[in-house]
């Protein structure tokens, strides 16, 4: 067996937790329990987990507005995440950030980011710190097919090559930049060719296949750790929900999502593979499913009864370290 059983169990648990967390976020948003804008990542779980599963808390990731999955994959506590998304004072960011600004510095999660392309230059900074301090830690940025067209991202890619930074650029290409087709916004035929043009190893992989994604990321992260500089991985995937919860998604094809949930579900693909290979049994995974449902239920119940911030003490705090 090419993978340890513990590794496979961890990968499955993490992917399934993301799936159930996101599906529950949709329900709670629709039930009026989550304020604001929420962008869920169900359908894209394999990439988040494949990218983060081998990283330590000292390795840094930068995320996007669609960041819940990256947080969970990096080890953030789902209870504190749900509280944050519901705006509670015991949330990961004391209710000040919310879904689009969720961060957990202790876990090496530099934050979701509501500015498209806002993350990669900062992740270069984390990589620069690691290189300068000689920590052997690496940094990894999640990007979308949309942020690929931001100048900030292209500048970060070029600088990562110039400074030979330990930065892995992961592109989750789900086919849609908000409500615009990825291949409309990308002027070139291949994002990976463009990425290679910056002078870094670049490849395009099937992001629905956890194992393919993991193997590609393993090579790229090892290269970064060994001082070999940045890499770019474009992982093709499917977004099961709208750009945001409540997006009518008029721009998507008839039955597109229904079909994708049937035939392009990275969790189903994972389960089929591990069962067919005899690595894990369906019963084992079903048991994990049940545990996860209990955890999600508890996260939501705890969040719904968690205290709200108090404007008298919480509004003006945390602006500066001292002033």
């Amino acid at each position, binding site marked *: 067996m090419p993978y340890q059983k513990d590794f496979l169990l961890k990968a499955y648990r993490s992917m399934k937790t993301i799936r159930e967390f996101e599906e529950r976020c949709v329900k709670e948003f629709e039930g009026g329990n989550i304020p604001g804008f929420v962008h869920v990542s169900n359908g894209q779980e394999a990439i988040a987990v494949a990218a983060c599963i081998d990283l330590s808390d000292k390795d840094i990731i930068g995320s996007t507005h669609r960041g819940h999955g990256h947080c969970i994959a990096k080890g953030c506590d789902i209870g504190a995440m749900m509280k944050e998304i519901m705006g509670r004072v015991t949330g990961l960011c004391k*209710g000040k950030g919310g879904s689009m600004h969720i961060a957990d510095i202790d876990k090496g999660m530099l934050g979701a980011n509501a500015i498209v392309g806002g993350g990669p230059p900062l992740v270069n900074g984390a990589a620069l710190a690691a290189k300068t301090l000689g920590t052997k830690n690496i940094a990894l940025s999640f990007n979308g097919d949309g942020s690929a067209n931001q100048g900030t991202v292209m500048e970060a890619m070029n600088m990562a090559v110039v400074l030979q930074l330990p930065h892995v650029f992961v592109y989750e290409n789900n086919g849609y930049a908000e409500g615009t087709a990825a291949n409309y916004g990308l002027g070139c035929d291949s994002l990976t060719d463009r990425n290679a043009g910056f002078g870094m190893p670049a490849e395009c992989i099937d992001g629905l296949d956890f194992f393919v994604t993991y193997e590609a990321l393993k090579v790229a992260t090892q290269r970064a750790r060994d001082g070999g500089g940045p890499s770019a991985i474009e992982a093709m995937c499917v977004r099961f929900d709208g750009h945001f919860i409540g997006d009518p998604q008029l721009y*998507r094809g008839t039955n597109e999502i229904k079909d994708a949930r049937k035939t392009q579900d990275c969790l189903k693909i994972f389960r089929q593979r591990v069962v067919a290979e005899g690595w894990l049994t369906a019963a084992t995974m079903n048991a994990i499913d049940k545990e996860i449902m209990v955890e999600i239920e508890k996260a939501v119940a705890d969040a719904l009864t968690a205290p709200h911030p108090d404007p008298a003490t919480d509004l003006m705090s945390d602006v500066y370290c001292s002033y």
Partner: protein
Amino acid sequence: MTNYSNDPKIAGKSSLKTIREAINDALRAEMRRDPTVIVLGEEVSGGAGCPGEDDAYGGVFGVTKGLMPEFGRERVIDTPISEAAIIGAAAGAANNGLRPVAELMFFDFIGVSFDQIFNQTAKFRYMFGGKSKTPLVIRATVGGGWRAGAQHSSMLHSIVTHIAGLKVVMPSNAYDAKGLMVQAIRDDDPIIFLEHKTMYDNTCEVPDEQYAIPFGEAAFPRHGTDVTIVAISNMVTRAIEAADILAKEGISCEVIDPRTVSPLDDEAILESVEVTGRLVVVDEGNPRCGLASDIAGIVAEKGFHSLIAPIRTVTAPHTPVPFAPELEDAYIPSVEKILAAVREVIGG
């Protein structure tokens, strides 16, 4: 929901319209009148290259909905997510014969495109000795109230007001929004047109015909003699609410809506303070180097002898915009805070 308009001057056929519809009206009629007017930005139509419906969004708040089906993708241009390139293209096109209306979606995104706005667009005319003109409108949504968090809720109007070469427009109602958008498109200078995202569904009577409201002319949604309240954007609605409550207590408030903060109708404010002797400025922006302190400064300098009480400003606190509803509600200036400020200057 408010149902008012400030000083509507045009009679004739009108109908109840939202701010969203009023701006859409202005854009559509100007695009019909002038083929050089184009609209560009992220999902100003939506669905570009997608398998489903075209015009899927019409802008994230639906303001430009229906323009693409009428004018085509050549004039209603969905762009990649590339804010610097959007503003640069719009400014360059404005210098070369078009009248672009570029959309920044959320004004927080000026961060990504700021060089193109303040170093390029704003300075062209002056640097080139008056030889160029840049008839560009940059539309963007501002403000909190949507629980959208720190990076989608900022005001930031004071930052662009600070920059010479830009005009900054902040309508508070549908009537003004239409007339100011028409003026913005016809104006030969770069305009920052800021729409408060909580106000799109506010309605008032809006004339069907096109009309332009000149820049630098304040409106007076309430006339009064005891206190002058200057309020910006959605704060006008709250200032009116406060004025109406105070009127019942016998306190007469004059509410001034500058409508454009650059140019600013400081004469209107100074003349009002001459009568009332008291000034309260209400602005959702941060307090430091902000529009409220700017207006207070102008009155302190030019209207000092009219004042019979210290000037009061009511602004957001000096923090980013918080996410949690309780915090955000405490962040945005409330009617209660305006009432307290007015009572304080009255000496109650």
